[in-house]
């Protein structure tokens, strides 16, 4: 798992980068939902176009998106491979028992279209907003403090714990773990026991560290007269382009939903 590469923020000069994080979160979030409502194949090009337009505006490198799309997920892969062959009556092409069906193709087009455009919006959001700023925006929109605190702390220790696991796995391999021969389609009890211990140690070490972290936090006033916690929202005055962008995206979202209702 590419935990180590979690820093998704890419610094660029663009209107999307300058967009107020709160408005960006709300607008892109609503647009994603509008994309999710699309059921008409005719709207898919519009949706992909919108996503591409916003991606272009964000000036993020294409490689960034390509890298992330290379994990399409087994599920989407299954959809692409299975639906066109199994769903529907209208056969478009036939090779022996294999038949390409129209309804399946349509369903696939819809699902993949929505998937790509929503994912692109997600990566625009993450690529143009540093994680901490995003969290600040979510908090100012009413995310409970406890959730925000937990997210921040887990994020901080994620990489450390991942490194801890990697080191422990190396130590195990150096002592011969995983080198014994295993029979096919069998779960080796001994191996499973050792993996359970590995996981257990990971939990115990994290727990023990959390106790020390808590002490350190208390000593620096955590849980006292709790001040408003750090909200690194950028307090630049909301410029015209901020509102224009927000307005345009919201109009596009509403337009899609209306078109969907008309066509349905």
């Amino acid at each position: 798992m590419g935990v180590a590469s979690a820093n998704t923020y890419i610094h660029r000069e663009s209107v999307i980068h300058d967009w107020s994080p709160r408005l960006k979160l709300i607008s892109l979030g609503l647009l994603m939902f509008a994309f999710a409502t699309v059921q008409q194949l005719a709207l898919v090009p519009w949706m992909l176009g919108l996503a591409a337009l916003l991606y272009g505006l964000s000036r993020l490198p294409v490689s960034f998106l390509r890298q992330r799309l290379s994990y399409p997920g087994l599920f989407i892969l299954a959809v692409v491979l299975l639906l066109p062959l199994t769903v529907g009556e209208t056969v478009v092409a036939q090779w022996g028992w294999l038949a390409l069906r129209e309804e399946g193709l349509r369903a696939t087009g819809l699902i993949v279209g929505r998937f790509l455009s929503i994912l692109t919006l997600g990566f625009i959001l993450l690529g143009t907003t540093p994680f901490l700023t995003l969290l600040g925006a979510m908090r100012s929109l009413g995310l409970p403090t406890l959730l925000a605190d937990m997210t921040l702390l887990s994020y901080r220790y994620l990489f450390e714990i991942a490194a801890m696991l990697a080191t422990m796995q190396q130590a195990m391999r150096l002592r011969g773990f995983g080198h014994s021969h295993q029979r096919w389609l069998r779960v080796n009890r001994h191996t499973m026991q050792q993996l359970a211990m590995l996981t257990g140690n990971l939990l115990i070490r994290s727990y023990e560290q959390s106790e020390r972290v808590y002490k350190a936090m208390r000593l620096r006033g955590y849980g006292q007269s709790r001040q408003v916690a750090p909200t690194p929202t950028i307090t630049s005055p909301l410029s015209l382009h901020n509102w224009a962008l927000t307005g345009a995206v919201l109009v596009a979202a509403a337009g899609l939903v209306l078109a969907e209702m008309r066509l349905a």
Partner: protein
Amino acid sequence: MMMESVSTGLNPVAVAQGWQSTAIAASALSFGYPDQPEVLREVTLTVQEGDRVGIIGHNGCGKTTLFMLLCGVLTPVSGDIHLFGEPLTPGQFRPEVALLFQDPDDQLFSASVRDDIAFGPQNMGFDPAEVDARVTQAADMAGIAHLLDRTPHHLSGGEKQMVAIAGLLAMTPQIILYDEPTASLDLRTRRRLIRFLQNSTETILISSHDLEFVLEVCDRVILIDEGHIIADGCPRAIMGNQALMEAHGLEKPHSLIPHVERHHGE
């Protein structure tokens, strides 16, 4: 038992008046972890403002435990602690005392160095401008101003240590407890830390196995064993006393041993 009271305090008032206030006064402190024999037994300890005290003793003698008691994280079974004359209630937040943990990763819990240094001042209720000012000042003092926008996780060990120290300094504590600050630092970073501590003006307590380090920084040493203070006084006198050191599982530091060419290895 030896006792000495040479002052290195830089508090100008105290120096001018030839008088020092008591920073820490602990009397008859006892503590044990649940289901275990007592770690500290009736420990009495007075530290004057501006003192630099080294705490030495073998693994598990109770140095970290003593520090946890002195900053109110643990509650003593009996005895009491006064900081600057005011009694310490365990669990209560006392910004005048700060603790540097042995592992800086325990202490750097924010996602950026700046946020981490700001954590203490924010909890103390300062307004944002004051918080910023404190962050800048503390980072300058610790020499890590260039790291402010980095993520703590990606720093080197020595850098983490200095960021953790800046996080404490931003709260302007009067007493700082350093728990094994040199473990796994390289010699260059260790040297930098020695300079930093030699120039600091707070009352400091340092627990360490690095006796050369204690010798360079502290003007008083306390040797702990079996829950008691065994010796308390001049570092050179205590650490130079081979019989005393060996009786308590320690060794005389090399720089206090008259040099003789010895043969190493077999």
